[in-house]
């Protein structure tokens, strides 16, 4: 195993193209667990640490977007002005691991691992985030729902890496919620992000840990829009939660059962809807 530390994105792309088996290393919080337990013994590692461009983030008020570099840590998302324009992303970042994990782990790492339990991913799905990708033939963009293609599978091809993510800054209520066995240091059993647009009172809702990819509950979103009166009672919030649960596709595994996960989605989505209605 050897470690290569490129200084620029072009350098990284060139190296990844020449070494198709190389593993990209960002914060290390997923990668090193696999190395420590001998689940992975990569022959070649590319550390993104020295690439300054990956650690940039920028709020652009003319396009109303926030760009977040792949190397930006959960801790930065939680504690910088990013949290003011991407509330749900900051909430999701705050639920990741411990302060130590959040100081090391990155948004790009979450996308690279692409676990259905990745905490930032439901937020990216609900906001229709754009993933910016550097490839040997130049830059390309992809919406998140096309980027994640399966459990721990993304659409990156040989020689490609995630440069960053753009999120729209929308006049909205947005929140993230998850269930785990306790409060701190927990991998989600079920999670959800709700974005409620103030202009037309439409909602977007995305579910984590309850399917092979993050699931957008499009039918529940459409139901919300089709109501003659904006959902505003506990009964309607519960109805919304049940509809979200219907669209989840959970499995039973070492972390939880499919039944519990479906129930958790119902409760989480109903609570998020209720929170969105609380001034």
């Amino acid at each position, binding site marked *: *195993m*050897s*470690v*290569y*530390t490129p200084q620029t994105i072009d350098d990284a792309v060139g190296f990844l193209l020449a070494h198709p088996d190389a593993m990209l*290393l960002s*914060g*290390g*919080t997923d*990668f*090193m*667990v696999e*190395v*420590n*337990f001998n689940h992975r*013994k*990569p022959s070649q*590692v590319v*550390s993104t*640490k*020295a690439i300054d461009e990956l650690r940039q983030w920028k709020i652009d008020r003319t396009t109303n977007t926030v760009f977040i570099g792949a190397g930006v840590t959960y*801790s930065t998302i939680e504690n910088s002005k990013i949290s003011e324009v991407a509330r749900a992303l900051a909430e999701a970042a705050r639920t990741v*691991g*411990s*302060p*130590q*994990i959040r*100081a*090391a782990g990155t948004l790009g790492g979450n996308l690279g691992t692409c676990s259905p339990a990745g905490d930032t991913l439901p937020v990216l799905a609900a906001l229709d985030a754009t993933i910016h990708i550097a490839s040997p033939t130049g830059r390309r963009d992809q919406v998140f729902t096309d980027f994640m293609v399966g459990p721990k599978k993304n659409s990156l091809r040989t020689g490609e890496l995630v440069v960053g993510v753009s999120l729209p800054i929308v006049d909205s209520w947005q929140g993230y919620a998850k269930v785990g066995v306790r*409060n*701190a*240091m927990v991998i989600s059993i079920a999670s959800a992000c709700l974005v409620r647009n103030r202009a037309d009172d439409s909602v977007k809702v995305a579910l984590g840990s309850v399917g092979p990819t993050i699931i957008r509950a499009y039918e529940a979103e459409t139901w919300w829009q089709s109501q003659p009166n904006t959902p505003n009672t506990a009964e309607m919030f519960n109805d919304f939660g049940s509809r979200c649960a219907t669209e989840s596709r959970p499995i039973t595994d070492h972390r939880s059962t499919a039944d519990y996960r479906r129930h958790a989605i119902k409760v989480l989505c109903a609570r998020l809807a209720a929170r969105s209605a609380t001034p």
Partner: protein
Amino acid sequence: MSEDQMYSLSVNGKVHEVRDSWVGESLLYVLRERLGLPGAKGACEQGECGSCTVMLDGAAVCSCLVLAASAVGSDIVTVEGLSPDGQLTDVQESFIQHGAVQCGFCTPGLIVAIHNLLDENPRPTELQVKEAISGNICRCTGYGRIFAAVQDVIETRGA
């Protein structure tokens, strides 16, 4: 950096050469087994317990989740580097006074995490203290005496 290459790490203000190591070694392993700095403890090897906490470029991180060879050029501070040789920091003194140490295995990680907290926020609330050490697992004390020790440091420093 390839298999047989030597590299250097800056730990506690000194440059240490790392020789004869496998490049996949964690910073925790290199600190303990290659550099003779056993302060950071190894338990879970997966970032769950916090006993290996060190400062990396000013942030408290789990050294078991840092690829040592990727920490070249970073400023690393371990529990051994928080005060001059043979001396204890105020946080360590307070831990002793309040009986915040039982088996002691989690203590170095807690000490580093608490120094990091108080450097950034000299007057944290109880909730902020709890959150700051939420990644440091102690199975002996029940945390009560740890909180008392931290509270004492906050008050003494603020006086």
